[in-house]
């Protein structure tokens, strides 16, 4: 039976199951990197960079295996949605918007250009950075106002910690996130080509 172009471009059940499983893996990686770095606020700023390195292989495998519209946007929305169900709604907003932009770029290049996929992956990890780290800026503002009335907190010390965390650390964290995403995309491409293409999986 001949399938139309429209049917071929739609996500099949197999594609959806693949996206679902690898989304679960990527979401678990956001949790693991968050927990590993979460004990120190400054290190927590680097958790998206670590996520960018580790989530490269599953992301590149999903894109290489599915190669249909939705294979970038759906995982982005799903990760945001699961975060939203646990209270982290900013992740849905940022990953949804940047995931859509990434999907448009990937569709434009028909999922063939690796350079475009690197940009798409940077947007994907950047969306996570904006959603997961962005509220910390807001919380810090809240923390400063709250700590004014608390015993045991020296306002100048609190200010210095905040300045460190959101001054130079942010200046390091943002390029580190981009670098982590680039490293992750190359790592992912290498693994997919070396193991999954040879095995005939993609």
């Amino acid at each position: 039976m001949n399938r139309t172009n429209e049917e071929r471009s739609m996500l099949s059940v197999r594609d959806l199951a693949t996206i679902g499983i690898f989304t679960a893996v990527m979401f678990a990686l956001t949790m693991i990197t968050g927990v590993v770095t979460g004990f120190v606020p400054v290190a927590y700023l680097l958790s998206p960079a670590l996520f960018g390195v580790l989530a490269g292989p599953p992301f590149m495998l999903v894109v290489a295996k599915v190669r249909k519209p939705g294979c970038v946007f759906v995982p982005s929305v799903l990760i945001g949605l699961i975060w939203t169900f646990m209270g982290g709604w900013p992740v849905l907003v940022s990953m949804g918007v940047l995931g859509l932009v990434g999907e448009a770029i990937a569709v434009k290049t028909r999922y063939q250009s690796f350079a475009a996929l690197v940009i798409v992956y940077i947007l994907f990890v950047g969306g996570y950075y904006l959603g997961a780290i962005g509220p910390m800026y807001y919380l810090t503002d809240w923390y400063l106002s709250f700590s004014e009335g608390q015993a045991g907190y020296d306002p100048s010390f609190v200010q210095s910690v905040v300045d460190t965390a959101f001054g130079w650390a942010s200046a390091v964290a943002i390029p580190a996130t981009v670098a982590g995403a680039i490293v992750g995309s190359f790592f992912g491409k290498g693994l997919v080509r070396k193991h999954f293409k040879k095995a005939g999986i993609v």
Partner: protein
Amino acid sequence: MADEAGRAAASRAGAGIDARVKLVHVLVFGILLFVGRSGSSGAVLMATLVGFLVFVRLPKCALKLVLYYGALWLLGWVLSGSSGGGGILGTLALVVFLLRKLAPLLGLYYLFAHAIGVSELVRALSAWRFPRNVMVPLAVALRFFPTIGLEAGVIKDVLRLRGRPLTLLTLCRAPREMLEYAFVPFMMRCVQIADELSASAVARGIENPEPRTALHPLKLRARDGVYLGALAVSSAAVVACGQAL
């Protein structure tokens, strides 16, 4: 027959509350967590969350949340008292403070993961007309979470048996190799599971264009109205406490 079904549903965790109501609860409290600007609003949020967890028959989760929050509060109090506001202890006090502020997330996780079953979630999202392309992978992802730990554990055991244990030390010595050894079999297994799951879903009629049926159809009842009323009152209290800084 309907009474039996109702009783069975109410006996499960969730107390028979409609999944849509619980999802609204998670979303509203998730937003309120970032709205409150005073310590009392956070405490009110925690207290009401504990109350809701008890109501949906998750007393153990409520107890864990209370213990977690209490331990953080005590630790923060000790650290802020002994640090004099600076040094390493002061930094730790800041960390503990942020963890305490985010503690309600744990309660929301309990509410989402333990009080809403995957089938319930799919029915709720179907009722909200969520697209199939989001609903199916979401259900697959939620079902797959417990498997991730099991699969990762098996791969870790195999690596140990082959003389390449996955530890912090081996990871630091040869990060690329160790990540490759861990990622490749894990992702191969994921691909295999995706194929098996899709075959199973097709066999169960996921591609059937007819509307889905349910043994326990979603229906808003009086207790859902009471729950929503309590949610509105507690949300107003959190907002009022947040404004009263």
